[in-house]
């Protein structure tokens, strides 16, 4: 028998109290993809061994990503009732010290700590409290100072494998509220008011999209959540699912309730093991507690959700290709119309949203659409979840209100370019988004502003490159990616990408001819006009934007046979995947 929502909440509260103010310290280690890559698994093991050696008791939880990826492995120690203390770049040896000092003796390692956070998670000033008094407040760290966390509100704070921790932090409150006090149409209306727009790249109004589906009278309708996320430099979808899968599950449930759909899939690229495992666990827990399945929380609303995996293909993130993949076919895009809202997966009306989009929904429903609409910039409401990577001091995942300008993002929040080098360009919105020159930093985070500047804010990936990076070479790498990931269905993309890559390889071998730029334009523009799906239509962006900002560099490669940065002189390896 599934618990009522009140029972669930009560139990969650009780468990949360035990964790934060119970009888033993709580150690949280970030083991999202960023943490694991930095060696978090070894740190967790060292912490456990050390605890045993000191015969000390502490609860160790593996949490998701706090966003401070540069600081991983990040260990967060909270003594009962005290603020959380964060240690950055922890090695197994340091883990031992942390246990010895902080846990066993109760004395934080002030010297190596990154900062602290008040015991009421995520917000507020840290109260002056004994030993932690000298530590800087983590919320004043540049990466966090201007953040406004909505979708990421729980990321790094809770154990993603524990549904009670999610519930203790307001989880499933919105669902309960909707099921008990709102009609589906009212939920939809709140999303509509919020002005939420799709975070997958196209920035289409979510409320409008949902209304298409809600308008269909078909008995079987689907909500799909897309976590294909194959863009290099994008990790926020994975980050959310790894850090807080339940917020997505709740978002999907609300979407289903709003549109009258009763079936859903979370579609994750196979190989993203962390998100897959944690999402599967979350779905299983939700079923156990009656939050999925028949008559959710005792209401008339039923919903079934399943995790589906793609093959190893970028294009399967394209919505119609994704449906083909779910149906078990080769992931190749379909033509439109009919649009998914009419004929989607298994021939039924379907709505497809990005992970981030759905992750906002619980807070929008809980706090009202107007609250969300009040955040942001003009028609781009809410926050942008950025993935900062490349030549930046602070890399990681930040959630910033729309409207902040790129100058601030790059130099203030991300701490500028390391080594005192010059920023050369940034690459936004995945490989198809193209590049922006260093002078584009006065852009503000806003879908329209970016679009007008010829770039895509898209999924929020920002890769920065410094002066040592060759624009031609980077373009070649981006096109090599696009070429390799073309599904091979429509002719302009299948062959156009290969030819673009061939020309770029020629140029970066310093063997290009004067006609090559025109040739690339010709191929690219026709690819743009003729392709079936976004992959081909946007596939020329990396080249066209690079040509816009760095025409001189291409010229140098072609006419002077020299690479200004010197990187194209060395023998290089390129995956010549295009041809035999």
């Amino acid at each position, binding site marked *: 028998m599934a618990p009522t929502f009140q029972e669930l909440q009560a139990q969650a509260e009780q468990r949360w109290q035990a964790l934060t103010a119970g009888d033993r310290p709580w150690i949280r280690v970030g083991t999202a993809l960023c943490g694991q890559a930095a060696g978090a698994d070894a740190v967790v093991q060292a912490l456990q061994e050390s605890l045993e050696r000191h015969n000390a008791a502490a609860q160790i939880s593996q949490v998701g990503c706090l966003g401070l990826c540069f600081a991983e492995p990040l260990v967060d120690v909270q003594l009962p009732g005290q603020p959380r203390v964060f240690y950055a770049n922890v090695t197994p040896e340091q883990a031992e010290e942390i246990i010895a000092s902080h846990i066993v003796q109760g004395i934080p390692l002030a010297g190596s700590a990154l900062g602290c956070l008040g015991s009421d998670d995520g917000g507020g000033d840290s109260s002056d409290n004994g030993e932690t008094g000298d530590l800087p407040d983590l919320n004043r760290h540049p990466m966090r100072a201007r953040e406004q966390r909505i979708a990421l509100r729980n990321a790094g704070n809770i154990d993603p494998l524990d549904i009670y921790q999610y519930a203790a932090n307001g989880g499933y409150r919105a669902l309960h509220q909707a099921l008990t006090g709102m009609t589906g149409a009212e939920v939809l209306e709140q999303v509509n008011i919020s002005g939420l727009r799709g975070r997958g790249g196209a920035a289409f109004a979510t409320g409008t999209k949902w209304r298409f589906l809600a308008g269909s009278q078909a008995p079987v309708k689907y909500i799909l959540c897309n976590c294909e996320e194959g863009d290099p430099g994008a990790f926020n979808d994975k980050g959310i699912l790894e850090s807080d899968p339940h917020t997505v599950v709740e978002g999907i449930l609300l979407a289903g309730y709003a549109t009258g759909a009763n079936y859903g899939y979370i579609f994750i690229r196979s190989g993203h093991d962390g998100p897959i495992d944690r999402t599967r666990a979350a779905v299983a827990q939700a079923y156990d507690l009656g939050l999925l399945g028949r008559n959710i929380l005792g209401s008339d609303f039923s919903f079934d959700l399943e995790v589906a995996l793609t093959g190893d293909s970028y294009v399967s993130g394209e919505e119609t290709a994704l449906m083909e993949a779910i149906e078990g076919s080769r992931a190749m895009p379909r033509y439109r*119309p009919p649009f998914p809202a009419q004929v989607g997966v298994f021939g039924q009306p379907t709505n497809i949203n990005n992970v981030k989009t759905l992750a906002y929904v619980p807070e929008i429903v809980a706090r009202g659409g107007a609250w969300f609409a009040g955040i942001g910039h003009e028609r781009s409401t809410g926050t942008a979840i950025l993935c900062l990577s490349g030549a930046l001091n602070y890399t990681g995942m930040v959630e910033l209100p729309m409207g902040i300008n790129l100058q601030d993002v790059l130099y203030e929040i991300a701490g500028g370019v390391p080594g005192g080098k010059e920023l050369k360009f940034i690459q936004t919105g995945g490989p198809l988004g193209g590049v922006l020159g260093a002078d584009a930093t006065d852009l503000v985070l806003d879908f329209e502003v970016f679009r007008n500047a010829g770039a895509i804010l898209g999924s929020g990936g920002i890769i920065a490159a410094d002066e040592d990076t060759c624009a031609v070479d980077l373009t070649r790498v981006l096109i090599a990616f696009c070429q390799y990931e073309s599904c091979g*269905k429509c002719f302009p993309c299948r062959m156009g990408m290969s030819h673009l890559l061939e020309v770029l390889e020629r140029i970066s071998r310093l063997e290009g001819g004067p006609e090559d730029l025109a040739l690339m334009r010709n191929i690219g523009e026709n690819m743009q006009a003729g392709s079936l799906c976004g992959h081909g239509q946007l596939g020329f962006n990396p080249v066209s934007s690079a040509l816009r900002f760095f025409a001189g560099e291409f010229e140098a490669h072609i006419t002077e046979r020299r690479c200004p940065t010197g990187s194209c002189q060395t023998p290089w390896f390129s995956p010549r995947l295009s041809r*035999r």
Partner: protein
Amino acid sequence: MPDDITIAIDGVEIKTQPGKMVLDAAVDAGIYIPYLCYHPGMKPFAACRMCVVSVEGGRGYPAACTLPVQDGMRIRSEAQDVNELRRSVMQMLIAEHPNGCLTCHRIDICGPSDVCLRHVSVNDRCVTCPKNERCEFKDTVRYLGMELESPLNYTYKQIPLEVADPFYDRDYNLCIACGRCVRACEEIRGDNAICFTERSGKALVGTSFGSSLLESGCEFCGACIDVCPVGALVERSHKWEKPRTVERTVCPHCPVGCQLNLELNGGGELIRVVPEYNSPANRGQACFKGKFGLEFVNSRERLQQPLIRRDGVLVETSWDEALDYVAGRLADYRGDSFALLASPNGTNEEHYLAQKFSRVAMDSNNVDLTSNLQPELTTALEQTLGHGAATNPLWQLEQAGCILVFNSNLTEDNNVAGVPIKRAVQNGAELVVIDPREVELTRYAHCWLRPAPGTELLLLGGILREVLDQGLENSQWVEAHCEDPATLRYYLRILDLDEIAGITGVSRDGMAEAARRFGGADNAALCYALDNIPPDLARDCVSALVDLALLTGNVGKPGAGIYPMRQGANEQGAWDVGCWANRLPGRGARRNESARRELEELLNCPLPTNPGLGVAATLEAAGTGRVKAMLLVGDSPNLGNGRLGDGLAALQNLDFLVVMDTFLSAPARLAEVVLPRATFAEKDGTYTNLERRVQRIRPVFRPRRGEAQPEQWVFGQLARRLDAPGFEHPSAAAVMDEIAQVVPAYAGLSYARLEAESALVLRSGGLESPKPTQMLYTGREHRGLQWPVAGESGAGTPVLYLDGFPSGKADLIAPQFRAPQDILEAEYPAWFVPGRVLLQRDREMQVEIEADSNLNRIVRDELVELNPADAAAWSVAEGDAVEVQTRQGRLAGLARLDAAIPPGTVAATILFGQLVVDLQNSPEPDPMSRTPGLDILPARVVKRDA
């Protein structure tokens, strides 16, 4: 049509209907928009982007194949910018497709056999491509007026050719990855034997994991070849030859009646077969027999002159001498000592003349088809409903909600009839198969009942009883349309379902499920053959099947009905015109005295009254000496394969045997006179297919050498010499006119009437407009006519009994539901149940290249499946090397014990690929006509020494 809307393409206004795509509308209206991946009859794919257009007031360049028409839409196709976009894609295609000739400045003045001195490798030339001059790609390049120079680098893909599989060659260096073949295989044929492989620049088509077609589930229907726009997929035989002329006719291999376009070379040889797209019977489809099995018409082994036996040796002679001799001898055998066995691929006219010759000239009712092994196939059907033929058109099977296939190896015997069935299943229809054998359709079946051989009739009783018990009977309709349903109900009510389950080996759940699926569907269709039904149960089996269709109210409505799956190409015609034991033309049974009188009056001559003999009885009578002289038309595998006992020995016993055949076959070698017979491709006439569609066949060519003649001429000549009246027809058309007089169902039919049932098909553009090969040959759509034809100008009848039954009510027959007792002998104590399927996913196998032929063959151990109880009794253990022995042959394999195999049966399912390899390597001149069936035979299992 009232809902017509108007769109304009390049300023030309055309009418079309909502729901269509712009490209379809353009094709309908004869306006050419270039395309490569589109193919009519398949869903649009939108990959090649060759059909991009722009819409006035719209954005971008949508593909016309996926752009729905809207009223008032103005499309630009022949515009500079649109063509520029198409050229840019084509330029890239040319860069990966051999293009020496495509981009040659001399192309317009280069003759087909000019020697080229350009520095272009042979691989890269069009003139050395098998598809040259039939290549849509090349035509499209020309249409677009491509530049000769391209800034792109040309890359030859260097993919090894696939030339070891039967019948096809695959050269993926020529492939443009349009996906037509994959879609044809998946969407039209339902086979999924081929798929897309790789991705990005390497994306191609092929079998998964690059396996041989033999193990991929390929049915060698050639549908992929027919749709390939380039030279990637081609027929191996006559690969390099170009057609000089193309003629349309109907396939002689089975009664589906596929219209085929025969390509002939300059020497008048048949080089290739392309199924006709605008044909109502086959809709552009063919099968391994039709596509690759017609080359016998070219054979050098064909008989050229009449042969006559002198001093025990057959020597060539003239027609006159042969006919004089035959007539002279036959004159002595008038009456019951004469028999005529006709070939199932004779035309209606020939069948009519054959029976007339036997009855009028030879005063004998002994006339039948050599293929007529189940004369009761449609007797009960005719008795109950009124006509001994399928009630509905074949392709209405696609609309059925449930299809029941009974004891028919349909995908091999009537292959193209399987296409609508598979498509229906793909689209959600349910399929019930009743067959002890594992045949291709069992792989698609939702419910496969596997009764013990011989118990099928009893099983049908069980299913009928379930229909009653579950309340699935359409009582209202039955009361209104059927005579005496109470008797049938009574006989069903006394059946004991548990006992039936025990005897048939089919569980009660199985029977209930079959009844639920068939009776529960809104409209259900029933296809049946009697492949392995004991002859004495055949009639009742058909009655039971008809009862099933009637009780559930599935007769006389579209998308339902009952289809007897006949064997020979024109068996239906033979039945209709009385070339059938004990049937008079159009008059049903011979015993009907008034019918005979009527006919005698019509023909103005007396008819014999003695009972006639069917093929089995004829051969028996030949063995005993009751029949002394025989005219045998065509060869039949049945004479030698044991289905008719030892037919050849019986023939040897005759006093006088005349064989009319295309080849010097085994029976011909026994004959005293052998007359060379023209093939289907050399005669004029009509075939009636299994959906009652009367279609013209036409002389495609004269016999290339020799003096082979059609039967019509021979019967006329013989009759004249025997002074028999009524054989003076100047043409096949005249014979048809007589048939129309004599056979009520054919009343109103004439060649002129058939011609009027054809229509010109719009051909877009001029000669230069590229079309898929299949469309290229479509000048005229020949619809034929489905009898009965209502009056001189009336239409045919696609669906029978829409307005009730000829005799008012259908005569429900209550058969005696029974199973034969112990027909197995001690020597062969079990039933051997052979099966054949396209794909055995779970079976490991190896495909090897055979050294002398360089062709693939399958190397594996067959599995002999036994019930564990039987295995114990015969002391066979799992994995033992065993041999199944029957009177006809033996099969070696490894034993596998499976409780699902009914006790007393031994099953072995081989792969269709094996059959195809055997057919390909067969030394027979016409191997496809001898495709071995799947006969259930008494057998025993013995262990082999390891």
